[in-house]
C-alpha cells in the first residue's frame, strides 16, 4: 500500500511538472552536443559509391559524408554548399565560386580541380553514374582559378541545379581517387561526417568532422547506420531503443507511432500511386475510355484503405502542392463522378461496360491493394477488372518490353523540378512513353521548351499547359499521394523531414540533428 501511495504521489508530481512546463512559452532549447545517433536502415547498402544512386536508404549515408556544389535544404530550396555563389554567363555557361575554407576529410583543401575531376568522373561512362544521362547536357568543365569553375552546357537547361543538388553529384578528391581508393567500399568527402568503417550487413560508421566548414556543426559525435532485413524487427528495435531513428517507416504503423509519446514520426507525402495505360493497345488507345476510368475512381477511399488515411488524393496534376510549379487551376480535373464515367463509357462505345486487364506486382502490398480497390470501384461503373499479379521482376520485365495493358504503379518524382514530367510523357524517354509508343507532339514541344527556359514564371505557365493537356489525354491517371518518412525516438531533435519527393533528401538535416538526453 505504501509503495502504491509513493507511486501515486510521484505520478502527481510528474504530471504537475509537465503541466507547469507546458504552460509557459516554449523557449527554444539550445542544441546539446555529443552522442552517437543509431540509424536503422531499411536496406543493406550494396555500395558506398557517391555517384551511383543505389536506393534512398543508402543515399542518407552518402549525404552525411559527401557534398555537392549545391544542396537541398528545408522547404525545398536549393542552397549553396561547396559553391558559395554562382552566376550565369549567357544561357549556357555557369560559373561556380567555391568556398575557400573547405577541407577534405584527409586534410587536403578543396580546389576547382577536384570539382572538374568529379564532374568529369560523373560523365564518364565507366563510372556508371546515375545522373550521367541527365547531366550529359554538360559539354565541358573548366578550371578558371583554384576556386572558380566554369560549366558549359550544350544547350540551356533550367533544371541543372536540381540535378547538382542531388547527393549523387558529390564532389570527390582527385588525389584520393587517382591514388587508387575504391569509392565503392570507402568514402572520403567534405561533408559533416567522416567515414570510419563499413561492415557489410551490419554497420556503416561515421564520426563528426571537426573541421567542417560550417563552424560548430554537426552536433552529433557520429552516426551508426545499421541495416535491417525486416521492417517489423526494425520497428521493434526502435521501440526497444536499440536504434534511435529509422527510414521508410511501414505505412500501417504510422498512426500507432504518432500516438506513442516515446516516438516521433517525420512523414509527408512521398510516393504516388497511378495507373499507366498502354496507349497503343486496344481498347486503351481510346481517350474517352481512359477518362471514364479517371472519373470512376474514388480517390479519397483509396487514401483511406491503402494509406490508412495518411496521404492525399490527386484529382488533378501530379505536381505537389508547395512547389513553385504547382497549379491550382488543375486541382480538380477528375473528381469522383461515376455518372460521368458511365456517360463517357457510352461515348467511348462501351454502353454495356467491358473487361480490362490490370498488371501489378504482388511483391508490394501497396500496389496489390491499390489494384484490388480499383477492381471494386471500377466494377460499379461496369468495368470488370482482371488482375494479373506476378512478382516485381516479371512486372519490370514486361513493363520494359511494353508488354502490358494497364499497370498500377507507385512512383515519385525523379528530381525536384517539374521536368520530372518528361520521364512520363516525353515520347523518346525509355522509362515510360517509348515502350508503349505514347507520342504527343504538343507535349514533346512544350516539355522541351520548359526545360531550356530560365524564367520561372514562363516555365510555370508552360507546365500548367502541359499538365492540362496531359490530364486531358490521360495516358496516366494519378490516384493519390501516400506518406513516407522516418520515425525517431522523441529525444532526437533538430531533424526535419522535407515535403514531397524531397523527402528522400531529408538526410541532409542530420547536420543539425542532436540528442536531447
Amino acid at each position, binding site marked *: 500500500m505504501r509503495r502504491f501511495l509513493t507511486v501515486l504521489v510521484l505520478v502527481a508530481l510528474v504530471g504537475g511538472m509537465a503541466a507547469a512546463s507546458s504552460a509557459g512559452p516554449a523557449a527554444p532549447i539550445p542544441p546539446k552536443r555529443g552522442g552517437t545517433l543509431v540509424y536503422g536502415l531499411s536496406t543493406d547498402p550494396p555500395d558506398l559509391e557517391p555517384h551511383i544512386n543505389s536506393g534512398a536508404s543508402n543515399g542518407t549515408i552518402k549525404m552525411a559524408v559527401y557534398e555537392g556544389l549545391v544542396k537541398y535544404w528545408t522547404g525545398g530550396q536549393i542552397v549553396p554548399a561547396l559553391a558559395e555563389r554562382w552566376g550565369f554567363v549567357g544561357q549556357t555557361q555557369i560559373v561556380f565560386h567555391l568556398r575557400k575554407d573547405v577541407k577534405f576529410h584527409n586534410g587536403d583543401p578543396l580546389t576547382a580541380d577536384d570539382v572538374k575531376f568529379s564532374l568529369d568522373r560523373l560523365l564518364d561512362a565507366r563510372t556508371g553514374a546515375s545522373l550521367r544521362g541527365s547531366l550529359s547536357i554538360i559539354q565541358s568543365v573548366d578550371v578558371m582559378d583554384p576556386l572558380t569553375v566554369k560549366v558549359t552546357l550544350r544547350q540551356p537547361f533550367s533544371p541543372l541545379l536540381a540535378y547538382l543538388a542531388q547527393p549523387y553529384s558529390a564532389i570527390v578528391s582527385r588525389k584520393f581517387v587517382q591514388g587508387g581508393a575504391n569509392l565503392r567500399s570507402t568514402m572520403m568527402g567534405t561533408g559533416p561526417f567522416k567515414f570510419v568503417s563499413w561492415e557489410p550487413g551490419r554497420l556503416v560508421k561515421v564520426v563528426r568532422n571537426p573541421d567542417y566548414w560550417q563552424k560548430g556543426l554537426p552536433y552529433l559525435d557520429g552516426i551508426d547506420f545499421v541495416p535491417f*532485413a525486416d521492417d517489423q524487427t526494425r520497428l*521493434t528495435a526502435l521501440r526497444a531503443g536499440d536504434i534511435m531513428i529509422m527510414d521508410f517507416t511501414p505505412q500501417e504503423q504510422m498512426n500507432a507511432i504518432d500516438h506513442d509519446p516515446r516516438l516521433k514520426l517525420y512523414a509527408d507525402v512521398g510516393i504516388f500511386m497511378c495507373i499507366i495505360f498502354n496507349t497503343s493497345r486496344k481498347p486503351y488507345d481510346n481517350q474517352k475510355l481512359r477518362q471514364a476510368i479517371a472519373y470512376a475512381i474514388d480517390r479519397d477511399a483509396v487514401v483511406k484503405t491503402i494509406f490508412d488515411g495518411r496521404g492525399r488524393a490527386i484529382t488533378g496534376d501530379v505536381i505537389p502542392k508547395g512547389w513553385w510549379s504547382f497549379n491550382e487551376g488543375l486541382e480538380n480535373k477528375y473528381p469522383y463522378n461515376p455518372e460521368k464515367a458511365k456517360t463517357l463509357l457510352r461515348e467511348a462505345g462501351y454502353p454495356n461496360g467491358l473487361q480490362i486487364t490490370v498488371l501489378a506486382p504482388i511483391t508490394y502490398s501497396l500496389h496489390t491493394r491499390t489494384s484490388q480497390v480499383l477492381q471494386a470501384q471500377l466494377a460499379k461503373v461496369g468495368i470488370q477488372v482482371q488482375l494479373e499479379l506476378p512478382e516485381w521482376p516479371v512486372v519490370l520485365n514486361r513493363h520494359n518490353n511494353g508488354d502490358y495493358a494497364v499497370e498500377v504503379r507507385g512512383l515519385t518524382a525523379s528530381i525536384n523540378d517539374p521536368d520530372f514530367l518528361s520521364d512520363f510523357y516525353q515520347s523518346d524517354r525509355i522509362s515510360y512513353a517509348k515502350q508503349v509508343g505514347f507520342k504527343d507532339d504538343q507535349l514533346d514541344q512544350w516539355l522541351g521548351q520548359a526545360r531550356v527556359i530560365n524564367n520561372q514564371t514562363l516555365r510555370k505557365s508552360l507546365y500548367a499547359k502541359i499538365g492540362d493537356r496531359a490530364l486531358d489525354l490521360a495516358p496516366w491517371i494519378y490516384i493519390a499521394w501516400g506518406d513516407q518518412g522516418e520515425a525517431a525516438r522523441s529525444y532526437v531533435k533538430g531533424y526535419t523531414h522535407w515535403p514531397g519527393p524531397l523527402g528522400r533528401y531529408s538526410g541532409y538535416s542530420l547536420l543539425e540533428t542532436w540528442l536531447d538526453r
Partner: protein
Amino acid sequence: MGGYLIRRLLAALALALAVATVVFLLLRLVPGDVVTVMLGESDPSPEKVTALRHQLGLDRPLLVQYATWLGRAVRGDFGDAFLSGRRISTDLAARIPRSLELGGIALVLAVLLGIPLGALSARRPGGALDLLVGGVAVLGLTLPSFVIGMLFVLLFGLVLHWFPATGFVDFSTDPVGHLRHVVLPAVTLALTIIPVVMRMTRASMLDTLHQDYVRTARSKGLAERTVIGKHVLRNSLIPVITVIGLQAGTLLGRIVLIEYIFNWPGLSSLLLTGVNQRDYPLVQAVVLVIAVAFVLINLLVDVAYGLVDPRIRVA
C-alpha cells in the same frame, strides 16, 4: 572402418553436387531477369541490358556458366556479388562464424540442460518434476521458434529491458555487450532443441532402466548414483547423440529465421539481400554453404555411429 568412411564420403560428395546443381538451375528458372531488376526503371535501354548481361557472363551458354561456377566454388571462390561487387567469400567469412556461434551456443545449452532434465524426469516418471518439465517441453515443441523469439523480444527487450531486442556487437570491441546481444537469440534457438533432447533422454533412460543389467547392478549393491551415472545414462546416450546430430542439421534453417527476428548479421541477412536483389551468385553461395554444412553434419553423425556401434560399419 576405412571402407565405410569412403562410402559415406562419396555419398556426401554426390549429395553436395546434386544440391549445387539444383540451386544453380532453380535460380535461373525463376521468372524475372536479374539484369532488368538491376537496371530498374532509370535506364533499361537494350544496349545497357546487353552490356550488363555480358559483364555478368549471363550471355554464355548455361553449361559453361555452370562449369565455371562449380569449378570456382570448389576452391571456395564464389566470385563477386552482382550488386555490391564485393567478394562473396569475404562476406561469407565474416558471417559464417556469427551463425555458427548462435548454433554452437544453442547446442551446448541443449546438451547441458536437456540431458540432465531428461535424466531427472526419468528418475520419477509421473512425478511433479516430470510433469512440469514435460509440460514445458510440449510448449517448446509446439511453438514455432519465431513465435518464441518474438515473445522474447517483447518481454525481455521491450517490457523488461533486460537485453537488447536486436543487434550485434563485436566480441573484440565489447565482450560484455556481445554476450548481452547473444543471449536472446541463442536461448530462443536452444529452446527449440532442449525439449527434443530432454524427451529422448527421458525415453531412452526409461527403456534402459528396465534392462536386466541395471537390475544386476542394483542387486550387486551399487550406489544408486553409480547405477544411474555409469550404467543407465551412458547406455541411454546413443539415441540422444543421434537426435542431437539431426537437430544440428535442421538448426541451420531455424538459425536463418532467428537471425531475421533479432537482426543478427549472420548468413540469413546475406541470403535475404541476395534473394531480394536477385543476386544469383550470392544466393547460390549462401544456399550452397548451408547445404554443404547439412551434408557435413550428416556425415559426422554417420561416422559417429560407426565409431559407437561396430555393427553399423558393415552396412
